[in-house]
């Protein structure tokens, strides 16, 4: 005797947020049932294991059917198959596109290609995020990337509109897309101490200050004109270099980084450069965060004192971003 078929369909689609999360996390039906049993849901309605199993299967099926729609969230609102209240739709989308910071940290800056996808099992083992969940997250990155790749306009806004995500999540995706597009190096050992949120913040700074918004022309948008002029600064800032020994190096470092931004290939090393040329020296000198702040503020402002310095605007734009990135990245 066995249950051959067992379905339950509501006019308003019934979805349990807890089960949805288990599904997203890549649990199998049986594992999900175990988790739910441990969670004590059985006591709620005198449910038995069979009831729980049947419910979990139903919900998993529903989610699988919805998954297609979640791939283009705009469809979810005007599809006819499932009647889902708007607040539920938002929840479904938001959770579907949510990701694990540990996972994304691993793929940040990597090419979102088939090759990377093949390595997901390693990442899964390393981050202890289930492979299924890794795939979903990876596919999400790829999907978002593909859609916004050809779009004009502000990156965050595009993502928000196309995928109906919350502002926070849209910003994170913008960061991921930005990193993937520019292939920033994030995997080096020296950068390991940085979390995804650190990078996301920096990406936000870069996107809002150094690009016009679209991913494609991000590189050229990095205001090559402006940066080309920066090397000319080199001589002019010498005035300040006498102040301290390390100052010279630091200043040179920052200016070199700026100069390198004109070259696509070198852009990739932006973060590693920041760490190597600036953060590490400072750290070895045991600068506090406050020291750092003071130094950078004065350093930025001092350029204004130079009468000969003609690129005030560009300088501010550059230093503004670098400053905030360094603040964010300067921790253990």
């Amino acid at each position: 005797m066995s249950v051959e078929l067992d379905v339950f369909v509501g006019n308003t689609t019934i979805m349990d947020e807890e089960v949805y999360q288990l599904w997203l996390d890549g649990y199998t039906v049986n594992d999900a049932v175990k988790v739910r049993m441990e969670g004590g849901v059985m006591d709620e309605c005198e449910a038995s294991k069979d009831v729980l199993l049947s419910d979990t299967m139903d919900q998993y099926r529903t989610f699988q059917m919805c998954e297609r729609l979640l791939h283009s969230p705009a469809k979810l609102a005007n599809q006819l198959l499932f009647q889902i209240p708007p607040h539920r739709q938002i929840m479904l989308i938001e959770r579907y596109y949510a990701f694990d910071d540990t996972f994304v940290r691993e793929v940040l800056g990597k090419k979102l290609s088939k090759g990377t996808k093949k390595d997901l099992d390693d990442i899964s083992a390393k981050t202890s995020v289930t492979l299924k969940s890794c795939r979903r997250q990876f596919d999400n990155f790829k999907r978002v990337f593909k859609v916004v790749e050809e779009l004009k306009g502000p990156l965050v806004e595009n993502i928000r509109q196309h995928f109906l995500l919350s502002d926070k999540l849209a910003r994170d995706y913008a960061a991921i897309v930005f990193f993937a597009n520019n292939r920033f190096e994030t995997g080096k050992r020296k950068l390991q101490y940085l979390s995804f949120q650190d990078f996301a913040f920096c990406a936000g700074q870069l996107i809002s200050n150094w690009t016009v918004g679209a991913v494609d022309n991000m590189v050229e948008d990095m205001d090559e004109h402006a940066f080309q002029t920066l090397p000319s600064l080199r001589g002019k800032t010498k005035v300040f270099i006498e102040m301290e020994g390390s100052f010279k190096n630091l200043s040179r470092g920052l200016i070199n980084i700026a100069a390198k931004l004109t070259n696509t290939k070198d852009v990739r090393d932006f973060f590693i450069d920041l760490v190597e040329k600036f953060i590490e020296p400072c750290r070895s000198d045991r600068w506090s965060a406050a020291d750092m702040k003071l130094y950078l503020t004065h350093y930025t402002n001092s350029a204004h004192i130079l009468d000969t310095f003609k690129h005030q605007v560009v300088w501010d734009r550059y230093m503004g971003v670098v400053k905030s990135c360094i603040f964010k990245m300067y921790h253990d």
Partner: protein
Amino acid sequence: MPGKLKAKIVAGRHLPVMDRASDLTDAFVEVKFGNTTFKTDVCPKSLNPQWNSEWFKFEVDDEDLQDEPLQITVLDHDTYSANDAIGKVYIDIDPLLYSEAASVISGWFPIYDTIHGIRGEINVIVKVELFNDLNRFRQSSCGVKFFCTTCIPQCYRATLVHGFVEELVVNEDPEYQWIDRIRTPRASNEARQRLISLMSGELQRKIGLKVLEMGGNAVVGYLQCFDLEGESGLVVRAIGTACTLDKLSSGSAPNTNTHMHPNTAPASNACNSPSKDGKEPVFVEDLPSSSGPPTPFRALPTSSSPPPFSPSKPCSRQSSSSDTDLSLTPKTGMGSGGSAGKEAGPLRTLLRQQTQTALEQREFPFFTLTSFPPGFLLHVGGVVSARSVKLLDRIHNPDEPETRDAWWEEIRQEIKSHARALGCHAVVGYSESTSICEEVCILSASGTAAILNPRYMREGCLDIGCTDHRFEEPSPPNCGFCHIPYDELNMPFPAQLTYCYHCRRQKVPDVLFTTIDLPSEAAVAGKGCLIQARLCRLKKKAQGEANATAISNLLPFMEYELHTQLMNKLKLRSMNALFGLHIQISVGENMLLGLASATGVYLTALPAPGGIQIAGKTPGDLSSEHISSIQKRINDTIAVNKELYQINPPELAEEGVGSPIPEPRHRSRLFRSHSESSDELSELDLSHGKKDAFVLEIDDTDAVEDIHSLLIDAPPPTGFYSCNTENMPGISNWTSGVQMFTSVRVLRLSNANLTNQGLNKIFTDLCENLLKSFYFKLRSMIPCCLCHLNFTVAVPEEELIQVTVTAVAMTYDKEQTQEKTAEKPINKGSLEAEEQLQFPLELCADSSSSNIQTASKISGVGESTNMSPRAASVDYGSFADRCSTWLELLRLKAHTIRRGSVKTSRRTQSLAHSVSSLERCSPLQEGRSRSLRSSRSFGGSSVTVVKMTPLSFLPGTRIIKYLGIINMFFIRETTSLREEGGVSGFLHSFIAEVFAMVRAHVAALGGNAVVSYSMKECVFMENPNKNQAQCLINVSGDAVICISETDQESSASTANTGQTGGSETDGAT
């Protein structure tokens, strides 16, 4: 009235990719009605085509308008090979044929393919212009309204109820025609869908004609069924109740009819009905028992079919025991014939005679309605039912479906005679059903024998309100229907009568079984609950006659067992009446399944039920400890149930119950065996007080099993109640939460050597587990009640049991309920009438509405039901226009993007800037043509929310318009079962698709809800070895516009116009 049908194809969206190479589709549309076909242009390379076609006009007869559906086929154009079909939409244009319903059908319809399911959507506008043509010989019946609802629809008033209408049409099933061997499954499915659509159109038209003949203008309680007889053909049959309905002006408050609106508390407003039934001397009423000729088997002569087996049998007998020690009830002054000397007497008698004759003139005084305007139902006799086993043969002449007609005729005659035996002249809550296995078919009909108020039958006395008052003494409306209608000297069956616990003047039975809903005026104590009896009986496999004989031999035993189970479970819950009783017997190759569902309730007019007493067959047979432990469990269960269902009937002193109580202490016994053991009964008096107890005798292990099975019915968890009727006895303060659902479970019996007992257990567990699953899934809605739980069982194959359930979960306000129940016991005895006069009689209409309003106010009425209909659909047309201009710009942009990686000049950048800012301000623009699918809809959902419920109302709302009947039939087939997620995945998506299509049709009619929704048929067949499965589903309901109770009329009208207007513009632009 010939008419002009106009259709316009506006656009499509979310189409599937039909051309792998380009990942696009070149779609066009064929619009077909009758034999005329139009085509749109091909819209090349788009998954969201904009056809914006001209108006396709069909000039047709109204007969065709009623029969034919508008058929829309979406195809993919292929230059070199045949065009591929993407899918179809069938639109039933019937709702456009009567003025009060919808005026236009406009909206997005899912494009449905029988192999692939829903594949995108299409926006269509359909209109009809009718010309007046008064042809006396016309074959059409345009203008007759149809309602699935089994009560008088909310915004109408019944001026006259004409009675029973029935019709059936037969045809060959395309699935079994020779051509089916050479055509594709798709073609075959489509032929079938189309045929059934045609047949139901024809059926509806023919019924409409009958209604017009009778002088009516509507059919209420319309019940249409399909019999898939396989080789022998396809039968579509329908029954209904012809009425003359008056539309209430939309401004007026819901009138008397809404009394039946279950929103109003059954007990609380019991009295705003100016009902005048009570005092009827002649008819006092009684138990459920149906009378029925003593011979359970009666061979009915049938002309055609080989051997007619017709073991028809009255189904619910009060207790089938042979020896209820019921002696003759002392005759009181209220014997038959004698009208108890009231001045109203003679008039009444006259009236009665009129009714009787009026009704008797009719062939079948049957009513498919289950709830009635107050005062309509005078007395209820009990359930009457008849079954007959037939052998199917090929229908030779589809135009003369005489055989099938004759079969049903026989059954109806039998029902009629049962009703008469119960002293009743009418049958209410009438329904018919079939169960088919191979060539054997069981036809069943059941209803409730009743005596009706003549007012509704007579022409010229249409005012429901108060005319009859003058000659009818107002009597307790809340007990009148319980009084026995038959002559107590000639009782059709053994029963025990007592004086009504309410009015003390008339006789009532100890138990009452009915197929109708609990009358709103009835006085109940506590809450109701779902009671089910389940039974499996094995049967030898056999062919033809032998098989039919075997089945007909089994039937009476099954009915008996089911009845016994029901009775025991009723007692166990300490209740004394069943409403909405529905007994289904389903036949399979090697077994019969029986499932009886009903809602148990404690009617305060009837005597309190006695307990259940356990007795060993012979003392010492089983250890007395064992027996007493069982007895204890039973007593405990009864006590727990009393608590659970809050049954605290007004305590009545035994003395107060009028003197002549026939037999103060007698008991009805139920014997397991035929042995003459009654004397040996151990006289354990474990009954409750002095109440009569029901004795269960344990004489073998079977009996022990049975008792155990009685006890395993778990009560619903805290916070849940369940019933299978329209209104839940004891709960009326609904809040807005509504969740309709369908659940299907199929069990495979792998164990070949099952006994009846084993099967029973499995079947019972199956049903119980289903209920448990529902409770669990819907736990977020607590406190909530599962209403209208409708179980359907089938034996699709040997060793498979299928149970299909459709129900609605509704939330209610717990606080309120408690108050209400607390005050309920006050209603007792003769005080009642006066108490309830707090609702002034003459203001009955208002009081009911105010009732509803208070109820809804308290519940904080649902914003959710109150969705703005204006948010309806999307403005696609204008969007398209804007898109096309944007497309060019975007293309340009894309070009520059491709080229200019690093070296883009400053100029492009600024262009990009400006574009992006533009984009920001118009969210409609999207980067690529592929992504035209719009993100704009976010926030305000573009899809109208459509609520569905199997009930005739939606809590917290008022129906302001009925838009027409929804009656849809779908077939889905797959040859890639595994890929679609196995049988469960397949059926899950199919049911979801059916819901989606129903909702889309309702939304296109301008509606926002479906009431009286039901899934009539869900036939599932699988062949896992071939990776194939097929499923047929038939659903029906009434499309309506409803508005929140709290809304004012003004908003109602704007909602209405806003909606239709909105959908029109959305298509037209």
